[in-house]
């Protein structure tokens, strides 16, 4: 008996050490990729010049590229990765659906609809490229409302339909429906409105003004704090609504917090960077494989670090270091995320209904 407990203790200590080691490795990767993302780009700049630009403020041309463009872009990539992955993790737990994510379930589409209403419904002047101050907040709020509305619909659907693939298909239907509405809006909108909307849908990490980056950072920080606060509730929700309620969780309150948090995270990113796919669904699975746990007190910080790292890699790849051209970041994230999603679907026999 003593021996069993002894073994367990050592096992626990071992797993604790492993967890710390993985966290350390992930943090290291985030820092490394952040530096690489600043150093590599479509314009070849020697590392020594980068350092000079950062510390000496000498060469004005290079300084502009590094300080005004590459640095904010890297920070945006990091923030976007964190936000999308966290919203994906929360959605997977709250819907008890391994296939949930802001993009596949149409939350990002909902956010786009919100943005489309602002750009094409009111004025081409309130487009991400040329607004500032309060306009940024109007745009982001519209995006939250759009994301929240779809999130609410998915919540209602998944409370009735338990099958994960069915919910997924309904999510795809929803986003197609929303695209149709946006298409109709495009048909009736003026040329200038249409142009600013199309530019926005291309999605980019590099077009944010410093005011927009501030709005994004504040929104995502709020979402991160809310999600840290919700980790105990998420753990209880893993058991399903009935058991969660029986151990003292206020399920309605928990769902509301997570609903608000997910809408803010996914909505803010979509408002400024356009719909970016497959990060939200794929990263939480990578984190679960890394840590082999279901405990959100580990999964949430793990997802923050992994999401940041994956998005930074995607950004580095999209810049095609050494060449003059730049790929759309959405294409890169899809190519990284889709294999993970396929792997989940094919492994579904083993996981059937679990996540």
């Amino acid at each position, binding site marked *: 008996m003593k021996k069993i407990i002894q073994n367990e203790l050592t096992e626990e200590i071992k797993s604790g050490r492993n967890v710390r080691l993985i966290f350390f490795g992930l943090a290291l990767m985030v820092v490394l990729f952040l530096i690489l993302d600043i150093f590599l780009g479509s314009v070849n700049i020697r590392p020594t010049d980068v350092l000079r630009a950062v510390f000496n403020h000498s060469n004005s041309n290079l300084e502009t590229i590094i300080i005004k463009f590459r640095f904010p872009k890297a920070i945006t990539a990091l923030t976007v990765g964190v936000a999308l992955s966290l919203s994906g993790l929360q959605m997977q737990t709250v819907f008890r659906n391994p296939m949930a994510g802001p993009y596949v379930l149409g939350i990002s589409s909902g956010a786009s609809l919100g943005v489309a209403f602002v750009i094409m419904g009111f004025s081409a002047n309130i487009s991400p490229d040329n607004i500032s101050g309060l306009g940024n907040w109007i745009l982001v709020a519209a995006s939250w409302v759009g994301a929240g509305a779809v999130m609410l619909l998915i919540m209602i659907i998944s409370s009735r339909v338990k099958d994960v693939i069915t919910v997924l298909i309904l999510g795809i239907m929803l986003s197609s429906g929303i695209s149709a509405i946006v298409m109709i809006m495009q048909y009736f909108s003026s040329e200038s409105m249409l142009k600013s909307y199309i530019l926005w849908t291309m999605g980019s990490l590099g077009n944010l003004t410093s005011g927009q980056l501030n709005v994004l950072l504040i929104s995502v920080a709020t979402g991160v704090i809310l999600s840290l606060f919700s980790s105990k509730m998420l753990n209880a929700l893993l058991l399903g609504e*009935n058991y969660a309620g029986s151990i003292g969780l206020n399920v309605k309150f928990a769902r509301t917090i997570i609903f608000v948090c997910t809408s803010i995270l996914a909505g803010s990113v979509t408002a400024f960077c356009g719909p970016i796919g497959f990060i939200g669904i794929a990263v939480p699975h990578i984190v679960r494989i890394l840590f*082999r746990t279901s405990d959100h007190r580990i999964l949430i910080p793990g997802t923050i670090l992994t999401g940041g790292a994956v998005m930074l890699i995607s950004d580095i790849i999209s810049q095609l270091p050494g060449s003059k051209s730049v790929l759309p970041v959405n294409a890169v994230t899809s190519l990284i995320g889709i294999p993970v999603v396929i792997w989940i679907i094919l492994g579904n026999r083993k996981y059937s209904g679990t996540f």
Partner: protein
Amino acid sequence: MMENIKEILNLDSLKIGYQSGKSKKVLLPPITSSAGRGELIAVIGRNGVGKSTLLRTLTGLQLPLGGNIFYYGKKISGYSKMELAQKVGFISTEVVKVSNMKVYDLVALGRFPHTNWIGKIESDDRSKINDALAKTSMQTFSMKFVSRLSDGERQKVMIARLLAQDASIMIMDEPTAFIDITGKYEILQLMHTLTHTSDKTIIFSTHDLQMAINQSDKVWLILENELIEGAPEDLMIAGAFDHLFDSSVVDFNSEDGTFSFRNNTKGSIYIEGKGHKRHWTEKAISRAGFHVSKEKTNPYIIIPSGNNNFWKLSVGSYTYECTSLYELIKCLDRMPQSI
């Protein structure tokens, strides 16, 4: 007065059912009952009669449509969700399907109503968790993944989680459904031990009447329009269980709490002999559709005394010998004339 002190759950004309919008569907007439410390209470009734609704209402997962539930003399609505979870725990047939969740983590979730905002497990929680694992003899499983357990093992882990929750009242909705025979009896044994040595009150629903009659201290028998309560033996004497069954098809024996199908259509037969072997011979022939006669018939069965494992079937002046009951019944069935 002694009983009053021991009573920890009181139902005062409780109405259960569903409410959607303004329309209410009340399932049973108002229930007034109670449960004492350390009692094992079986809830019996047909499917859809309201067993689950009653248990969910008692757990606070569903609101009562009228009347009151008192835990330790205090109304259920007077407890916050966390406070209630420290008094009342719940398990059902619902399977927890989570990959990457270790048994220890699942049991640790039982500490939910006791831990701080982020769910930090302190040393006191740790000892409660280990204690729960020990009581359910699941210590060796603590680092295994829940998704790899058998149904019976998983249910024991769920009970361990309930123990870690430290609730004195455990509500179990069909805790032994979908579990194989060995697992079933292990869980039943565990429930028995918990009520008798750990002073837990367990209210469980079951479809296994035999199990309920043999093990529980009290039965809540839910019929279409009433709830009858009492010790299982009291209900036997009152013949309350007879209402559960369609008496033209099933015959309930209120002497030993067993059932048989009414198919005594093939005639009567007399058995000569006694003891253990006679008991099972009677069972076998009544299953085959014969009635055990008190008077001598032709043919009749003779059970020789001693350890010889054979039966004699006397037909007129002939005597057949059979080496098993299986063979005996085959012999009887082959008889051309009606007996």
